[in-house]
């Protein structure tokens, strides 16, 4: 058995260099050259200033913006340096209390919406950084956003339709609305009265 340690050590050293340094180094060099934007986090810049990543959710609380899902990342949510989920089980009192609080807050903020609250809008995502909400969740906030910006609800609905990403290839994943992107579009097309 002890005779196996010399080749074991040499093998481990070799593979540490090959797949631990050369391989990631090569992938880094190629990615930075070919996919520079993606390789650095798909950042979104407004007038040369980074305001976030279109893949990473960020919090919105003001009425004139679409709001994202509840987040358990970090201590206040949407901490992109500490992703996290609630990990509450289905029979956990804390889950039900938190969802109830989210439902109540949603009802208060959106008095014009009468339908049931879409499930994704009051549940915390797996990463705590979910950049998307469902089209139904955007729809449910349309009246509030329209009122806060002095728009007709139809205008906001059109924007939602334009920003709803369909399933990839028609069947992969779910239709969704990227919260940061639609909010940037709101600011671009319909600046909020301040």
């Amino acid at each position, binding site marked *: 058995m002890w005779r*196996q340690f010399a080749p074991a050590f*040499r093998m481990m050293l070799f593979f540490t260099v090959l797949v631990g340094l050369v391989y990631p180094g090569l992938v880094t060099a190629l990615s930075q050259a070919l996919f520079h934007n993606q390789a650095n986090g798909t950042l979104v810049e407004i007038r040369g200033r*980074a305001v976030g*990543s279109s893949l990473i959710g960020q919090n919105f609380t003001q009425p004139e*913006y679409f709001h994202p899902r509840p987040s358990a990342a970090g201590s206040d949510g949407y901490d992109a340096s500490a992703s996290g989920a609630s990990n509450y089980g289905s029979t956990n009192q804390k889950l039900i209390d938190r969802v109830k609080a989210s439902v109540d807050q949603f009802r208060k903020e959106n008095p014009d919406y009468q339908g049931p609250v879409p499930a994704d809008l009051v549940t915390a995502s797996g990463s705590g950084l979910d950049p998307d909400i469902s089209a139904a969740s955007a729809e449910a906030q349309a009246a509030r956003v329209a009122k806060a910006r002095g728009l007709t609800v139809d205008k906001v609905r059109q924007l939602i339709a334009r920003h709803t990403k369909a399933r990839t290839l028609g069947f992969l994943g779910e239709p969704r609305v990227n919260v940061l992107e639609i909010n940037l579009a709101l600011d671009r097309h319909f600046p909020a009265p301040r």
Partner: protein
Amino acid sequence: MTANGVLYILVFFLVLLALTKPLGLYMANLFEGKRTFLHPLLRPLERLVYRLTGVREDSEQRWTQYAASVIAFSLVGFLFVYIIQRLQGFLLLNPMGFSTGHAPGNATAMTPDLAFNTAVSFMTNTNWQSYGGETTLSYFVQMAALTVQNFVSAAAGIAVAIALIRGFARKQANSIGNFWVDLTRATVYVLLPLAFVFALFLCARGVPQTLKAYQKVTTIEGAAQTIAVGPVASQESIKMLGTNGGGFFNTNSAHPFENPTPLTNFTEILAILIISSGLTYTFGRMVGDTRQGWAVFAAMAFLFFAGVFICYPSEQAGNPQLARLGVATAATRTQPGGNMEGKEVRFGIASSALWATATTDASNGSVNSMHDSYTPLGGLIPMFNLQTDEVIFGGVGSGLYGILLYAIVGVFIAGLMVGRTPEYLGKKIEQKEVKMAMVAIIATAFVILVFTAMSMVARFAKNGYWNPPGPAIANLNNSGPHGLSEILYAYSSGAENNGSAFAGINVNTPWYNLTLGLAMLIGRFGFILPALAIAGSLAAKKKVPTTNGTLPTHGALFVGLLVGVIVVIGALTFFPALSLGPLVEHLVMREGRLFSSLLSVAPGFSPACAPMHRGAAWMLGIWS
């Protein structure tokens, strides 16, 4: 269930099926020493490995030498990872300053027990994580320690599976191949090219690949947001392909930077199963009868579908408690509905449930949604998959050698029924083979149940080393039956080298880090050593001719037998524990019962005052 969800799962399976033969054939040729289409490109690299390491390509090993090589290589790998982690504060590529004075405020300390747990975890292809990657590890550790183990622990698994196949294929031979050569070929010809191409694909779709520090931005509403990045794509690709599953980030493939789009999600689930699925064809090919490989594939496919189609409808049905609060849990054209707690909108329910099933069918353990927040029955499937020893496609290599051990038990039981010495693939299955197969199956079950029981009753003293004072179940995030599930899942995941978790439980304490580390070691080598012993024993045997009395092992009867053995052994062993966890939770959830505080704990044993060497006394303490 939605029609789209069912379509997703069927298309996924068809693509997997279509890839099984080409990849399996490629691996069969490779491990039989034939030239493949990648030899012109990669043969020089392979020769370089042998030249630098002094390995003789044409030499063969007996099973004992083969096993010694696996153990030596694993031990050296463990030491590399442990040392690199402990030294990360002094090493390069640490822009966030982990383990230094400039570490961010939310950083996790790299303690000896955490470094031990992580080193064992990656060396054993478990990739259990007691830490969150972006708050604990430098880029150097992620690359030079963890990515390396992602490759070589997977390659070692493939090597052992190939050695076992040779045991069936060879006649009156005293050797089963050369571990160093198998390891090198699996890494250089299988894992490296696939991982390289997949990493570039992932990066093109949005997975970061940079050595720069985390990005600081100011959000639209004016808040500061620090966005963790890093060399993610190169690790993500091999993490999926090598059934490793250890995420770059805390939330694994639920994190948009590990899994940004529905397309990356589909390909990542495929990457979980593709090599293990291909190995079933490799097996059939190398034993000279591809029908044998397809029979194993069929048993796996049956169990795969059974799992998905219990998990998916349970998740889509959602949590009745939320429906009572006026939440829409039915799927519509514009929203996924169902149980969305812990799931991402871009994936929805179907591909989350598919992932949860696939990652625990295999010993992958990556997650794209949080299993802890699954409905009781939805979460039962991943847990039961772990407890069947992950032989439903399984880990790369480990799935195949695992299911072959079950096949040995299966033909043994069939032999008992008709009173005849069992045979498998022309080899007589005798006392030694059956004993070895049972050792593997029982060892892991024993570890899971004993450690779970100990953690349920353990109580820790003040100022002790093991855990914060009080009962070990105080580390839980959920109470009631779901709390038991968290612990049971943790040890199942560790002992079966999976790495996924009901992640609410705080396991970054010496008690959990060390016992889980031990469970991983027993699970890994409790399977590898018996598998190699069987390989050695079988290789030495003659082939017996097929007669009328031989049980054909390529037909539906054998597939049914194999499925039956896997389910019955898993069910008999774990039914009591599962009925106290997910099954009872399902019943009380329907009644509307909720749990808010920890159950009171009966006085248990106290590790703080019992030295390690009195371990046996602890176990007795549980039952006294």
